[in-house]
């Protein structure tokens, strides 16, 4: 879609259409462990790797990257990707699930100074429920996770009734009787 002619000339025609999207989120603490871990496997992955690195101080050598983008651009990167590798943030998880993408979650760890809140709880819960979500807390397991998740079956089906719960609460409390 948005492929530039340069990419074709490099002989990367197939690569331009298969993409692993990486997201470190917008938390102010750098998440270098994720970016370094992805950079290490970028040439093994056999796919184009694009990383949103946020406040990371490590700059990738083998993959394309940028720091931040708008929400619309974020959604279009996720949509274009064959899989998403990300911090275990609620936002990126929700967007990837809505767009039915296989997902590798790397929780930010308090002990490495990457987080202000623990992130692994939701990642581990979702990983236990879906074949297409893997939670890795040891970054060395990244290559294996990418291989494993590539052809996994995606079966997300989440709905929220929270707006309806609020609506009926209001009706009941303020407008009945």
């Amino acid at each position: 879609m948005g492929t530039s002619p340069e990419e074709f000339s490099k002989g990367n025609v197939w690569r331009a259409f298969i993409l692993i999207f990486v997201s470190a989120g917008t938390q102010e603490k750098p998440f270098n462990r994720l970016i370094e871990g992805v950079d290490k496997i970028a040439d093994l992955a056999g796919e184009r790797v694009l990383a949103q690195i946020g406040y990371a101080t490590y700059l990738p050598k083998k993959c394309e990257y940028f720091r931040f983008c708008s929400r619309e651009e974020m959604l279009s990167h996720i949509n274009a990707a064959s899989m998403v590798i990300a911090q275990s943030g609620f936002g990126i998880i929700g967007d990837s699930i809505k767009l039915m993408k296989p997902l590798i979650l790397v929780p930010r760890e308090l002990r490495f100074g990457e987080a202000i809140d623990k992130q692994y709880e939701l990642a581990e819960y979702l990983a236990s429920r879906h074949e297409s979500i893997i939670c890795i807390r040891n970054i060395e397991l990244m290559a294996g996770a990418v291989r494993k998740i590539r052809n996994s079956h995606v079966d997300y089906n989440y709905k929220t009734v929270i707006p309806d719960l609020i609506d009926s609460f209001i009706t009941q409390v303020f407008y009945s009787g």
Partner: protein
Amino acid sequence: MGEEKGKIKICIACSGGGHFSEALKATEKLKCEKYYVTYYNSATQEFSRKNRVYFITHPRHCFFILRLFLFIRNIIESLFVLLKEKPDLIISTGADVAVATCISGKLFGKKLIYIESGGYVTSKSVSGRIIYPFADLFIVQWEPALKNFPRATYGGPLF
């Protein structure tokens, strides 16, 4: 019915990051008069251009005495906004910045809906733990969280 619901005023109180987007997803379809109480960051500042937002002190994690001071400021500001706006209902997705608004709201006889943040599945958030006994409606986003909050209602994730 939708018309009539416009008469009540809702206070939406929460932190400025993930909690804020969860709160927006939970309340965006409500037709009532709404205002927001949060702390200042680039996202909430952007949001405040088109919405009524009060910025109050964030009792961020820091040295104990300073944190206590920030909390006291947060409580005073929370009370000030509450007494000025006199909402009928407070909706919160939590974190420390919203606790004072929730509790003082209850003390002044307002209704309170609390939504436990989606990041918590098997453990409880600090603000959820504090507000659980007071909330008129306590919603969790994941089924396992019902074990921690037996009187809660399951609502599904706010994706």
